[in-house]
C-alpha cells in the first residue's frame, strides 16, 4: 500500500544516519571520558575508572588558581558583552534603516573580522596592542575580543531590526513620542529579544575564544580557556584528572550559557551569519 523505496535507497538512508550516529557517538564518548576521568581516583588500562573521587576539583582549583581565572574570565566576558552591545546595536540600527553611499564598504568592514580567522589578524593586532601598552592586561583582552564580537552583534541584529516594521516607529512619532520616549517605550521593547539573543551568543563565543585571548593575555589576564590550554600544553606536570576537572569546569561554564542562549536563538545562528556574505 505505502510506497516502498528500493533497497538501494533504504541502504543509502541507513548509511547516512549511521554516519550521523557514529559522529555523535564519538563526540559524546569524547566528552564522557573527560567527565569520568575528572571523577576518577585511578583510571589506567580499564574500561571504567577503578574508584571515584571529587578531590581533583579541589586540587585543580588550587593548582590552577581557578578562582582568579574565573573572576578574570567573567570580568572580560561581561565587558565584551556590554561594549559590543553598546557599539553593535546602534550600528546595526543605522545599517538596517538607512541606505547611504559606501554602505557596502561598511558592511564589508563588519564582515571581514568574521570571515578572517582570528589567528590571521590576531598577530598584527596583538603587536599593535603590545606597542600601545594594552596587551597583557584585561583591557587588551577585552579590546581583542571585541574585534569579532562587535561585527557579530551588527550582523545578527540587522535582519532582526529589518523585520521590525519602520511604520511602528512612524506611528509612535505621529502619536507624539519624542526621541527618548520613542526609544524607551517603542524601540527598546521591540529590540530587546534580539539584543538578548545576540549578546548571549557573544557571551558563549567569548568564553570559548581562545586565539585572541591567548595572543593578548598576560599572566594575570588569562581566561579559563587559555589557562586550560596552558594546562594541557604542560601535561605531565599535573595529574591528568586535575586537568580534566578544569576542563569540566570550563565545559560547565560554556554549556550553561549555551543552553540559556538556545532558549532564544536557533542553533545555526552560533555559526554566524556567514550566509549573508
Amino acid at each position, binding site marked *: *500500500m*505505502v*510506497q*516502498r*523505496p528500493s533497497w538501494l535507497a533504504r541502504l543509502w538512508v541507513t548509511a547516512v544516519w549511521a554516519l550521523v550516529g557514529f559522529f555523535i557517538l564519538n563526540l559524546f564518548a569524547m566528552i564522557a571520558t573527560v567527565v569520568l576521568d575528572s571523577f576518577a581516583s585511578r583510571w589506567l588500562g580499564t574500561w571504567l575508572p577503578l574508584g571515584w573521587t571529587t578531590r581533583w576539583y579541589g586540587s585543580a582549583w588550587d593548582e590552577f588558581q581557578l578562582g582568579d581565572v574565573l573572576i578574570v574570565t567573567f570580568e572580560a566576558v561581561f565587558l565584551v558583552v556590554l561594549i559590543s552591545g553598546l557599539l553593535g546595536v546602534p550600528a546595526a540600527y543605522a545599517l538596517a534603516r538607512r541606505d547611504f553611499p559606501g554602505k557596502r564598504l561598511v558592511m564589508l568592514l563588519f564582515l571581514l573580522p568574521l570571515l578572517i580567522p582570528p589567528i590571521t589578524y590576531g598577530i598584527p593586532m596583538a603587536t599593535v596592542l603590545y606597542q600601545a601598552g594594552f596587551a597583557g592586561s584585561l583591557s587588551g583582552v577585552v579590546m581583542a575580543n571585541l574585534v569579532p564580537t562587535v561585527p557579530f552583534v551588527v550582523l545578527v541584529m540587522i535582519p532582526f531590526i529589518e523585520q521590525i516594521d519602520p511604520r511602528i516607529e512612524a506611528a509612535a512619532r505621529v502619536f507624539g513620542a519624542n526621541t527618548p520616549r520613542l526609544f524607551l517605550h517603542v524601540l527598546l521593547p521591540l529590540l530587546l529579544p534580539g539584543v538578548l539573543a545576540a549578546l548571549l551568543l557573544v557571551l558563549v563565543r567569548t568564553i570559548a575564544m581562545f586565539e585572541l585571548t591567548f595572543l593578548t593575555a598576560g599572566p594575570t589576564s588569562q581566561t579559563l580557556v587559555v589557562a586550560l590550554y596552558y594546562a594541557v600544553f604542560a601535561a605531565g606536570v599535573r595529574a591528568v584528572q586535575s586537568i580534566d576537572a578544569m576542563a569540566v569546569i570550563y565545559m560547565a561554564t560554556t554549556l550553561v550559557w549555551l543552553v540559556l542562549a538556545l532558549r532564544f536563538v536557533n542553533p545555526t545562528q552560533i555559526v554566524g551569519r556567514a550566509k549573508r556574505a
Partner: protein
Amino acid sequence: MAIHAADFRELRLDRLSRQFGAMNALNDVSLTVRRGEFIALLGPSGCGKSTTLNCLAGLLPATGGGIFLDDRRIDNLPPEQRGFGMVFQNYALFPHMSVRKNIGFGLTMRRVSKAEIARRVADAVALVRLQGQEDKLPGQLSGGQQQRVAIARAVVVEPPLVLMDEPLSNLDAKLRLEMRAEIRRIHTTMGGTTIYVTHDQEEALSLADRIVLLRDGSVRQVGTPDELYNRPAHLDVAEFMGFRNRVPGRVAQRDGDQVIVAVENATVVAQLREDLAPGAEAVLAVRPEDLVASDDGALVATVTSTEFRGRDHTGFARMADGTELVFHSEHSAPRGSIVRLRPAPERTLVFA
C-alpha cells in the same frame, strides 16, 4: 500539433485515503476518470484536493486504497515511474536551466534522442506560443510566460494524465482569464486528460467537464458544472456554489421533488434536494440573484445596508427571527425599510 496524450481507458481511484498522524486528510476517495476528461478537484483550503493530487503524482504516499491506470496498479510506484505530467502552483521551473532545457527535461530523463528532443520541444514551444523565448532563463520571463513553460514541460512527455495544482493562483486577474482559455485550448488540442485542483468555483465551472467537490477529505459531490451549479446535493455544496441565503423552515407539503416550505407565517415553493417528509425541519438555500424584492414576496425583512454593484444593488436585510439575507434589487432600498423578498421557486433548494 504533434503532441498527443498517451493512450489509456480510465484512471481509477479506489477508496484512496491519507492520514497525517491522527488526522484524516483524505477519506475513502473513489473516482473514475475517463480518457480525455477535464476534471476539476474543487473545495475550500484543507479539503484534501492537493493531497489527492500529490497522492496521484506519487509525491505523497497514500495510507489506504489504491490507484489504477486501466488495470495496472500504480500507487506503489515512485513519481518518476508514473509518467504523469504535473504543473505546480509556483511553476517549480528549474531556475538554472533555459526554457528549452526545462521543457526538454522529461524527455532527457526518458533518454529520448537529441534530434527527437529538439523536435518535440519545438512543438511544445509552439503549442504554448513561446517561440523566441527558448534560450531565456525562467527568471527572465513574466509570470504568464513561466506558466506556459510549466505547462509545456508537463505535456511534452505526452503523459496519459496532466495534473495541475492551482496553476493560476499566482497570476493577476486579467492574465488568469487568458491562461484559463489557454489551458482549455491545450487540453483540447492534445486530446489529453487533465486533473485540475482549484479553490475557485468559477475556474472549475468554466474549465471542467466534471467537478469533484471535496470537503474535509471526502467527496461531497461529483457532477458536471451544470449539476453542481444548479443541483447541489448537499447544503455545504450549495453554500460553496454560491447559495448564500439559508432560511430555516418546515416542510408543509410535498409533491415529488416539489415542496412547500413554511417560513414564519408565510410559505415558499421550492425544490427538494434531500429526502424529507412533511413536517420535517428544513433549510431553504437560494442565491442572492434569485431572491428578488417583490410585493408578493414571502420573506419579510428589514434592510440593514445596500451596496451599489453597477447594474443593480446588493441588499442586506434581517428577518424577524434574526436570519440574515442577501438579495439583489434594481433600486437602492433605504436602510431600515421593510422589504418583501420572493425566492425563485425553480432555483430555491431545500435541504435537511
